[in-house]
């Protein structure tokens, strides 16, 4: 059903509020007739993206093309796009019929009229009432509300209001239907039913659906294509199978379904080492490259001790109906496995087939901060705080004298105002709960469990991000203080040291 024709295309679209990028230069092509889901945690920019397509927000940069014509600045009422809002946004002063007929009554369509002299002219005219009635009835039938057209909106249940909101859109036969978490307010049972119905409606109508949700299961169930977003950036675009089986990075792997994530090294061609054993894999990475490995719980093969690649201890076992869910400790690493076979708590062997191992390039392995200014006291300013650094790294055999100048042999440097690039290893940052002014502090925006440790991202007030490796779990959203020893910070000077000689 999906053709190769691109219906809407976002080119380098950005939306910033002050310094904060809600949507950070994204590019995306959506093909005609597809069911596309934009998936991500709250605050990832997915709703903002949808609102820009709908015309409710103007991008601060980039262009949006609909059928190859620029609609970036077109107001919503001129776009052949309709939206199903999160809280339905029905008109309470109108009944069901009038809500659905709202768009039709405003619309003008070309009609050929024969003049008195026999000449035929095309005029823009409103629909006739009979036409509107017929179209509204058809739309209500599609959503299964034929009987309720005279009812007041306030007398409808949440699910029925949802259907009216959908009927109100599809009656206008838009080119694209936008759905902003439309099932969020429904209970679980209702949500499951509506998912199936929406999918069927999409098949029947052939309209392109762009659906926004934070529910990964919903996305996997309904979509032709999933767009995973985080921090205003597209992480991966692919079919549900691709997203699930071949996550592009650790964030996607963690967000879509349960997964075990480990640090690993490529030891040979298509052989990767993690959990203290070597596994064959299908992804080809350079030998000796450090990578992230994702293993889905259902891809773990359990067996009698010594039968697999590596042995572990089952420390917990939960019966889930169709399968058992095991928590297995392999040395310090934790592994979650799902299996239909029943194993007793105690020793067990583990194996994973090559196609069950997903390897991803490691990203952001360093904390690198550019353009950090040196202050009068030889500290640098970073993320609204001050950080002690070791300036002597810049010149071999140098030291800092009592006046704060860097001295090397007979040369003296005043580095106040100089711009430095700082490099801080992930495991050299300590996290503390107490926040004090003048120190670097921020909010935990992401926490990823990697086998035996957590990889945490702390974002400061001015949007600098610190990646920290720690043994302890921290809560998302917590305010924390970061402590970094000056000998752990590698510094590089931007420009030539001679410029700072005095």
């Amino acid at each position, binding site marked *: 059903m999906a053709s190769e024709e691109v219906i809407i295309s976002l080119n380098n679209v950005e939306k910033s509020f002050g310094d904060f990028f809600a949507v950070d230069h994204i590019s995306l092509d959506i093909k005609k007739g597809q069911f596309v889901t934009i998936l991500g945690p709250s605050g990832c920019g997915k709703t903002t993206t949808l609102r820009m397509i*709908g*015309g*409710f927000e103007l991008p601060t940069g980039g262009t949006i093309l609909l059928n190859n014509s620029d609609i970036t600045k077109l*107001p*919503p*009422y001129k776009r052949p*796009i*309709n*939206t199903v*809002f*999160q*809280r339905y*946004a*029905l*008109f309470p*002063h109108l009944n069901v019929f009038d809500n659905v007929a*709202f*768009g039709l009554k*405003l*619309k003008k369509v070309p009609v050929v009229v024969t003049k008195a002299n026999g000449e035929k002219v095309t005029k823009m005219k409103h629909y006739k009432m009979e036409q509107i009635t017929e179209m509204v009835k058809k739309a209500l039938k599609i959503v299964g509300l034929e009987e309720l057209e005279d009812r007041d909106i306030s007398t409808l249940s949440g699910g029925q209001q949802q259907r009216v909101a959908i009927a*109100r*859109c599809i009656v*206008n036969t838009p080119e694209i239907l936008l759905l902003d978490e439309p099932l969020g307010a429904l209970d679980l049972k209702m949500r499951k039913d509506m998912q199936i119905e929406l999918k069927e409606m999409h098949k029947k109508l052939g309209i392109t659906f762009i659906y926004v949700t934070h529910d990964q299961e919903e996305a996997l169930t309904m979509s032709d294509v999933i767009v995973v977003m985080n921090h205003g950036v597209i992480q991966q675009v692919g079919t549900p199978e691709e997203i699930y089986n071949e996550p592009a990075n650790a964030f996607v792997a963690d967000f879509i379904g349960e997964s075990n994530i480990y640090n690993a090294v490529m030891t040979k061609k298509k052989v990767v080492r993690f959990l203290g054993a070597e596994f064959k894999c299908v992804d080809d990475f350079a030998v000796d490259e450090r990578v992230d490995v994702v293993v889905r719980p259902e891809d773990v093969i359990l067996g009698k001790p010594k039968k697999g690649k590596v042995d572990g201890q089952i420390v917990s076992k939960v019966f889930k109906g169709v399968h058992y869910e095991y928590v297995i400790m392999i040395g310090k690493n934790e592994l979650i496995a799902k299996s239909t076979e029943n194993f007793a708590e105690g020793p067990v062997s583990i194996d994973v087939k090559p196609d069950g191992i997903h390897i991803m390039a490691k990203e952001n392995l360093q904390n690198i901060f550019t353009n950090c200014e040196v202050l009068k006291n030889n500290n640098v300013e970073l993320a609204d705080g001050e950080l002690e650094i070791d300036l002597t790294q810049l010149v071999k055999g140098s030291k800092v004298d009592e006046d704060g100048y860097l001295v090397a042999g007979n040369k003296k440097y005043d580095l106040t105002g100089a711009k430095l690039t700082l490099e801080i290893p992930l495991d050299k940052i300590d996290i503390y709960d107490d926040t004090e002014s003048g120190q670097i502090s921020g909010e935990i925006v992401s926490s990823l469990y990697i086998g035996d440790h957590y990889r945490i991202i702390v974002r400061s007030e001015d949007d600098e991000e610190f990646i920290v490796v720690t043994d302890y779990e921290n809560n998302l959203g917590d305010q924390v203080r970061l402590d970094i020893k000056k000998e752990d910070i590698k510094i590089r000077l931007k420009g030539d040291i001679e410029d700072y000689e005095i």
Partner: protein
Amino acid sequence: MKFRFQRKYFSIPYVIFLSLFVLVPILLIIFYAFTDANGQPSIAAGAKFFSDVSNLNVILVSLFLAVQTTIICLIIGYPIAYFLANKNYNKNAVLIMLFIMPMWINFVLRTTATRDILFAIGINGGNLPYLATSIGMVYNYLPFVILPLYTTMLKLDRSQIEAAADLGANPFQVFIHSIFPQSLPGVISAITMTLVPVMSSYVISDALSEGNITLIGNFIYINFANNQWNNGSFMAFVLLILVIFSMFLTKDKAEESRGNLW
């Protein structure tokens, strides 16, 4: 029998208050309207009222002035309330205070000041009594229109407005089909708070028209001042009928907007 305190006894103060200050006065008005100076039942006051065309004229002028003031206040107040309630234009509530502040100044003082200002620019009760009264009325009742409109505008559902635009309504149609229907309770409140008070107002027309415009309020005052209690009461009775009639007209809408008065 032993006295037991019941919750319904809490209503006693209200019952006393309502009977003394609402029910008894209304009964007195009706009593005086249909008796003569000796307290004998009579329709003389009513007959006198209807036999004199100038009396009907008073009612027509009052009605016309009330409707005119209400419409002008709505035309001026509606956009003001809309922009004041919109965070893009009004980041804090200071501006709304500026529009409400005149209400804090003594009413008589305010009206006298209005008269002097109008006099200074050449509009006075001698040459343009109707214009002077109209301006005074609009100035005085504008806050009563802005405030209820402002409170309903604060509660406008942005997503409904967006939905209307999404379904193809241009900005004008969005106003007609979404913003105005949503603000209707505020409009009804504004009308009830302007229409009747203008009809029965006395000080404004008295001060600004220098006695050249007689409204229902002035008429009643003049009659009572001259000890014509029966005639004055009959006019008050007519006003009462008008009020009940106008409340009946807005009844359906007012029920929807209950609790939205302020």
